Structure formats: structure tokens, C-alpha cells
């Protein structure tokens, strides 16, 4: 319980710092502070006075910030310059799309990367290990945008296996409920579910593949390294000398000890995964937070940038802290009262 408290405090403090930063952005961006903060361009002086009154911009910075914080917490995130829509709604549509993409890529990385990495580690310094390692090295060093473009060229334009862009064919009218396309399809009642699912999978194929190549490669390399480390430990020798079979040694002693150090590395990977997801979705016109933010940059949509940054940072911090917390809970050799870290 105490550890939950520690992580909770860490989480909220980090968020507070981020909120301060995003509030400061309204002043740092060029242009009118009022429009940067609210996204509304005042029609006349009276309207302007009203907005200043409403957002307490005539008070001290501290009270401005407190008001800003309470507005954020209540869900009044301001409006987009460009579309004039509520930012909360826009991000509510875009962020789940990115998370969905990153989640599938992570899923593939774990499902493929862990077993392959374990296998390479167990067979370390043999031909199998060397070939797995070099393939993963090559996969790891691809720039993601180049890989995505290559996939588009090869699979969409040449072979015509997968569609070029988007999440689902426009024929299907899927109402947004959760923001996650597969769940939304299952929840929708007026469409052919199996057809829609197949179409969504076709759309998912290329972006997920492009993303997961890199995550899988790094997963393989981390797992392999960790397994080799564990194999050299005296307790593995001791376990073998007790006559445990190969499988028993692996499942009882190697696997758990090898995965414990991989988990924090996974938390670090999440940041680069989200970044890569943003790049990939721009290329595939995936309606996620990445392409949304890039549009915002092009159109100098300052309120959108401010809130988008905050939203992405929150997601990343939340995932990182959750993984660290999880690791802390399952690793018996770590002190439960150790300080929490991001």
C-alpha cells in the first residue's frame, strides 16, 4: 500500500510539473496569450474582457495557473484554432488510435520477441543465435519511416495486399464509442461484423508490421542478453548440478530471473514506441495523435499543441510508472520501500 502511495505521489508531481510547463507554453508561444490558452479568437473588446475575466488572466500568475489546472481537471481543455472543436473531443478520438497501434505492436513484440530471444539466449554463440542476432540487429537499425515507405511500396502499390491508408474502409460506418477500432466494430450493431473486422485487420497490417519490426528486434536483443547473463550465474550451475532437467531449469530458474531485468527496459522502450507510432501513423494517414500533432504544428494550432503534448506525456508517464510498479511488486529481491522512479 505504501508503495502505491509513493508511486501515486510521484505520478501526480510529474503531472503537475508538466501542467506548469504546458501553462507556460501559452506565454512562450508567439501571439496572444488569451488565444493560445483558450483557442478562441475574441470578436470584440467586450468579448475579450469577458474571456479574460473567465480565465482569470487579469490575476497573478499563480491564480491563473490554479484556475488553468482546475479547468484541465474538469475537462475544459480549450478549443482548436483550426477546427474550432473542443480539444478534448479531438484528442479523445486521436489518442486511442495511437494507443491501439502501439498496443498491437507491443503485443507482437512480446509474443514473438520473448520466445525468440529466449531461444537465442539458450543457444548462445551458435549458428542459430548468430543468425537470430544479426537479423534482429538489421531490423533494429531500420529507420521506421523508411521501413514504412518500403512496406507501402511493396505491399500496397506492387502486390496490392493491404490498403494504403486509414483505419477502415469508408463503406463501414463505425460509430465511435471507445476510440479503439476493433472494439468499436464489435460494439456496432448495424454493420457486418466479420467483414468489417477483416477490413480493419487489413488496414492494421502494414502500420503494425512497420512498428513491430523495431520493437520485436529490440525485444529479442534485450531478452537474449538477459538470458545469457542469467545462464552464467552460479545458481544456474547449482540448479543443474542438482540434476534438474533442462526444462525445469529453464522454467523455474532461468525464465523468471531473465524477465525481471527486461521489464524496466520495456518501460524505456515504450517512449520510443510511441514516437515511432507517431511517425508511422503520419505515413499511413492513421488518424492518431501523431498525425494530429503534426497537422497542429503545420497550422500553428498552439492550443492543440499545448494540450496534445500534455496528453501524450501523461500516457507515457502512466505506462512507465505502471510497469515500474508492476516490476517492483513481482521482483522479490527489490526492496518494497525503495524510492519510486520514472
Amino acid at each position, binding site marked *: 500500500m505504501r508503495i502505491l502511495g509513493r508511486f501515486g505521489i510521484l505520478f501526480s508531481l510529474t503531472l503537475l510539473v508538466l501542467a506548469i510547463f504546458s501553462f507556460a507554453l501559452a506565454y512562450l508561444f508567439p501571439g496572444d496569450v488569451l488565444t493560445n490558452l483558450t483557442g478562441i479568437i475574441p470578436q470584440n473588446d467586450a468579448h475579450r474582457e469577458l474571456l479574460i475575466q473567465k480565465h482569470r488572466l487579469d490575476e497573478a500568475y499563480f491564480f491563473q495557473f490554479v484556475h488553468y489546472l482546475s479547468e484541465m481537471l474538469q475537462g475544459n481543455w480549450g478549443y482548436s484554432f483550426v477546427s474550432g472543436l473542443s480539444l478534448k473531443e479531438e484528442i479523445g478520438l486521436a489518442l486511442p488510435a495511437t494507443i491501439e497501434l502501439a498496443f498491437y505492436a507491443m503485443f507482437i513484440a512480446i509474443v514473438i520477441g520473448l520466445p525468440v530471444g529466449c531461444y537465442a539466449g539458450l543457444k548462445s554463440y551458435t549458428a542459430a543465435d548468430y543468425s537470430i542476432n544479426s537479423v534482429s540487429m538489421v531490423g533494429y537499425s531500420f529507420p521506421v519511416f523508411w521501413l514504412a515507405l518500403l512496406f507501402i511500396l511493396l505491399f500496397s502499390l506492387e502486390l496490392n495486399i493491404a490498403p494504403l491508408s486509414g483505419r477502415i474502409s469508408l463503406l463501414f460506418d463505425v460509430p465511435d464509442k471507445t476510440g479503439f477500432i476493433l472494439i468499436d466494430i464489435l460494439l456496432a450493431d448495424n454493420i457486418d461484423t466479420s467483414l468489417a473486422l477483416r477490413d480493419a485487420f487489413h488496414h492494421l497490417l502494414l502500420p503494425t508490421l512497420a512498428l513491430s519490426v523495431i520493437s520485436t528486434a529490440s525485444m529479442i536483443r534485450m531478452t537474449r542478453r538477459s538470458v545469457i547473463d542469467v545462464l552464467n550465474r552460479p545458481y544456474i*550451475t*547449482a540448479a543443474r548440478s*542438482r*540434476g534438474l532437467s533442462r526444462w525445469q531449469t529453464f522454467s*523455474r*530458474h532461468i525464465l523468471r530471473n531473465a524477465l525481471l531485468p527486461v521489464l524496466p527496459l520495456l518501460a524505456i522502450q515504450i517512449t520510443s514506441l510511441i514516437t515511432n507510432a507517431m511517425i508511422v501513423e503520419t505515413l499511413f494517414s492513421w488518424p492518431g495523435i501523431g498525425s494530429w500533432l503534426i497537422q497542429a504544428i503545420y497550422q500553428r494550432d498552439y492550443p492543440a499543441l499545448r494540450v496534445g503534448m500534455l496528453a501524450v506525456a501523461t500516457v507515457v508517464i502512466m505506462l512507465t510508472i505502471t510497469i515500474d510498479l508492476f516490476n517492483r511488486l513481482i521482483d522479490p529481491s527489490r526492496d518494497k520501500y525503495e524510492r519510486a522512479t520514472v
Partner: protein
Amino acid sequence: MPMLDIKNLTLEIETAGTRVKALDKVNLTINSGEIRALVGESGSGKSLIVSAISGALPQKFHLTADRMSWKGKSLLSMPTEERRQLMRRDIAVVFQNPGSALDPSATLGEQLEESIPDELVEGKWFWQRRQSRRKSAISTVHKVGIKHHRHYLSAYPHQIPTDISQKFMLAMALISQPKLLIADDPTRGMETTTKTQVLKLLTRLNQTKSLSILFISHDLLAISSMCHSMTVLYCGQTVESGRMKMLRKRPLHPYTKALLDSAPSFQNDLPPKSLLPTLDGTIPSLKHVPIGCRLGPRCPRAQRDCVITPAVRRIHDHTYSCHFPLHMEKL
């Protein structure tokens, strides 16, 4: 026929292109029901012998032996599965560093219970078997002198003191009811009372269950009180081996004599405040081993012939390898 019979065991380690003989023609036999001591300075290769017997050597170590057999079956040519079964049932090893030889992510109880071979578990259904495992774990833990089994069986290795984890290693070795126990410094760092308990337990098991023990230690007092025979190792060479009594009364090798002399408790006529007799110098590192008899540069009796490795000579069951042994005038 001896239980474990090792003749001319040579272990070469490859370092930067050259091969160094970490063990040079080591001979070791353990008879059934015998407690044999293996003595030598740190770095003389005692633990390497343990790893060689338990088959836990890294790939880059090259092991050759004229004979290395367990009850007549060669350990070197044995299929992996048979060797594994042998290690599970007949030979048990207590490794030197108990802290690192225990899996940090599993409780001690789990690790103890997985060491029980299936044949020793009673019951047909898994809950009966689990209960039986639990019972024998608790009784073994009591046997090695750990009282609070409830606390320690559910503890993780980093939560327990070193002497308890040493006892746990012993319990893990004994729980499979082995025929041979290889104990690599099992009493290191224990205080005297606990040490006596452990040694008593080992002696009792040797007497009641005819457990053979290869006892590796620096503690000459403990060795001379419980062991039947002793093998002395110096820098990877066996210098002398024989019955404990004979070795103590009449050591033939200068190194054995120096070793025994350096233990004050063996000398009754030691004048007060006198220096203990020791050999000059230290054990050579593996990079600079002398040719011939490796004791050569430090030996008080060394002569020109000592640059040739002495052959193993034998008087009854007392073997030694020295060109100029002690006490030979009297024969």
C-alpha cells in the same frame, strides 16, 4: 572398487591463445562410506575439481582424464540424461558461495522442494505429493539445524543470513538422500557451535547412512577430527594422499608437513610467542606456474631434479609425488 575414482584428471583453461593447466594429473578416490578431505590453499584448484565432478564446467575448459568413473561407469562418456539422473539421485554438491548459488527470485522452500527426486515423494495425487514434499522439506531443514522453518521456507535468499543459507545449501544437498556429498567449504564463516553441529550431522549421516563425503575445507582441526583420509592439493597437483592418521604422523611431502605445521593446534610443544613455521612465498598464479613439481620454488628440500614432475609413488594406500620425501631415512 572405489565409489568415485579419478585418475590423472587434467583441466586446461584457454587464455589468450595459450593453454594453462589449472589441474595437472589430479588423482582422487573416494570409497563407499568414507569421509575424504581435500585440502589446499586458495587457488589450488579444489573448487575446480568439484565443478569437474558435478559436470558444471564452462565450455572453454578442456577436461581430460585417464579415468573418471562412478561405481565403474565412466562419467566422461556417460550420456547427458544418465549423468543428470546420477546427479539427481547419487551425488549432491554444496557449492562454495551459498548466497549466489541460490536463485534470488524463488523462495527457499520452493528451491528445497524441487530438489526432492520424485521417487522419494509419497502419495498419488498432487495434494498428497505436495504435502509429502513439504513434510520432508521441514524435516530436512530441522535436521541441518534451522529452527524456524515457517519463516525461512518462505523467505527469499537475500533475506537470510549467510550461515542459514549455508545450512540451506546443505539441506538441499541432503534432501535427495545422496550416496556422495561433495561439500565445498560448508562451514565457512560459521561460528564454532554451529560448525560443530554441522560437522556432527555429517559424521552421523556418514555413520548411520554410510554417506560418503568429499569434505573440502581450510579447517585442519575439523578435518582431522572427522575425516578418514585426506588428499593434499597444491597449485593443481595432488602432492600427497592417504589415511588421515598416517599423514598426520608421518607426512612424506614437504608441503603436507608445512601445511600441518602451520596449524598451531597440532603442535603440543610450541613455545610461547614463537613464530609459526610457514613456507616462504605464496601460491603461484596460473600464468606463472613453475615447471616440474609446482612446489619447487618454495620447497625447503628442492634440488635440481625437482624441475621434472615427480611420478606418483605409493606405500600401501599412501601415495605421494615427491623426489625427496621426508621421513624416508627411517624406512
